[in-house]
């Protein structure tokens, strides 16, 4: 107490000065003119710089709580980022499909792939459109990249698509450059083959394969794939032509069903053709 009194006695002038300066500042701050507003903004700026300078000093008592909050927030943000990434990719995909849908000549029904099998002999996929959407069996299914397959079974809201990569799948195709016709089939893997192309036919690697006008199921000029290899089959008169499908079946998520049905009159006349 005596020590405190000694200190007070020693610095009484400064204590009085500090006290009156403090009172003056209180009175000054009671004003609301331009000068005080400017000084207030200046003070905030200086405080901001000071806080920023000393922000590296952590508050030890707050750290555990801050860590918990930040960890939870990190998990939430990571989830949000994943969702946004997915949405962005979906957006890109759908814009591409929309562009295709708006420019295509066909009457199409868009559909999403619900499930698919790519590792069986009879590969199929299920899409989320059915008879309620005017889908019927034998309708072709395409994507913006090219031919996918055809509808085989239809329910009210779902349909089964026979993929190009299916042992039972057949399509009449044509090589766009040389107009050579053949039958597209699948014998395993991710490659299709074209049958019935004789060794004398002009077929080269890199040629584009499209559906031909001879097919009653598929409209002509739908892209099928690119010829990836050409070789002569030993012991036959035909070439072995491998086709890399244009469609990436592993990443297929949206497709289009072409609203077309086989020409029954044409089918009938074919039935009347003499059988060999």
């Amino acid at each position, binding site marked *: 107490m005596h020590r405190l009194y000694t200190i007070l006695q020693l610095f*009484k*002038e400064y204590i*009085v*000065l500090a006290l*009156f*300066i403090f*009172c*003056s*500042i*209180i*009175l*000054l*701050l*009671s*004003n609301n*003119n*331009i*000068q005080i*507003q*400017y*000084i207030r903004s*200046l003070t905030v700026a200086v405080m901001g710089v000071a806080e920023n300078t000393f922000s590296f000093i952590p508050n030890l008592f707050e750290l555990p709580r801050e860590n918990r909050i930040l960890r939870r927030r990190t998990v939430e943000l990571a989830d949000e980022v994943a969702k946004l990434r997915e949405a962005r990719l979906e957006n890109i995909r759908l814009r591409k499909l929309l562009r295709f849908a708006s420019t295509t000549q066909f009457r199409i029904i868009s559909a999403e792939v619900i499930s698919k099998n790519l590792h069986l002999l009879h590969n199929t996929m299920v899409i989320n459109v059915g008879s309620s959407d005017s889908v019927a069996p034998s309708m072709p299914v395409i994507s913006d990249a090219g031919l996918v397959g055809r509808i085989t079974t239809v329910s009210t809201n779902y349909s089964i698509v026979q993929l190009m990569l299916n042992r039972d799948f057949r399509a009449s195709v044509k090589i766009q450059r040389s107009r050579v016709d053949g039958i597209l089939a699948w014998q395993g893997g991710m490659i299709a083959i074209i049958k019935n192309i004789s060794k004398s036919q002009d077929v080269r690697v890199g040629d584009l394969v499209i559906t031909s006008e001879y097919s009653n199921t598929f409209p002509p000029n739908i892209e099928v794939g690119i010829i990836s290899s050409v070789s002569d089959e030993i012991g036959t008169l035909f070439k072995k032509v491998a086709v890399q499908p244009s469609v990436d079946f592993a990443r297929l998520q949206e497709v289009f069903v072409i609203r077309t049905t086989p020409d029954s009159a044409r089918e009938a006349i074919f039935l009347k053709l003499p059988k060999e």
Partner: protein
Amino acid sequence: MAVKFLAIEGITPDILLIWLSYLTLTEGQIVGTIGGFSLGVLFDLAVGGFLGLTALSKTIACFFGGYFYNESKTLMTLGSFQFVAFVFVLSFVNNAIYFAIFVAGIQMHYPATVLWYGLTTAIYTAVVSLLPMFLFSRKVKFG
């Protein structure tokens, strides 16, 4: 009103400061500081301007003036040109602090303002303080 009557080109002498200088030289630093604050607040309330600004500037000016307090030489200082110089310095310090806050955030150049208003007011105040200085010098001469 009397001060405005003495105005030259808008510059008026700070009569209050002359009296505070006298108070500081005769009574010391603490009394001077208290006097500076009290009269400054009263002045602000009377004038109705920037409340607290005169109080602040005069508090600091009188505190600074308190360093020149010498009990044994009070009358001699009051009756000499030292008093005029003292008033000049205190007035300049008072104006420097006053205008430092007054020009904040408005389109006035602080050095120019202090030079024109601050220095000229200090000079004029010092000139006016010659009158009490002469009065005190007679007192010193004739007892």
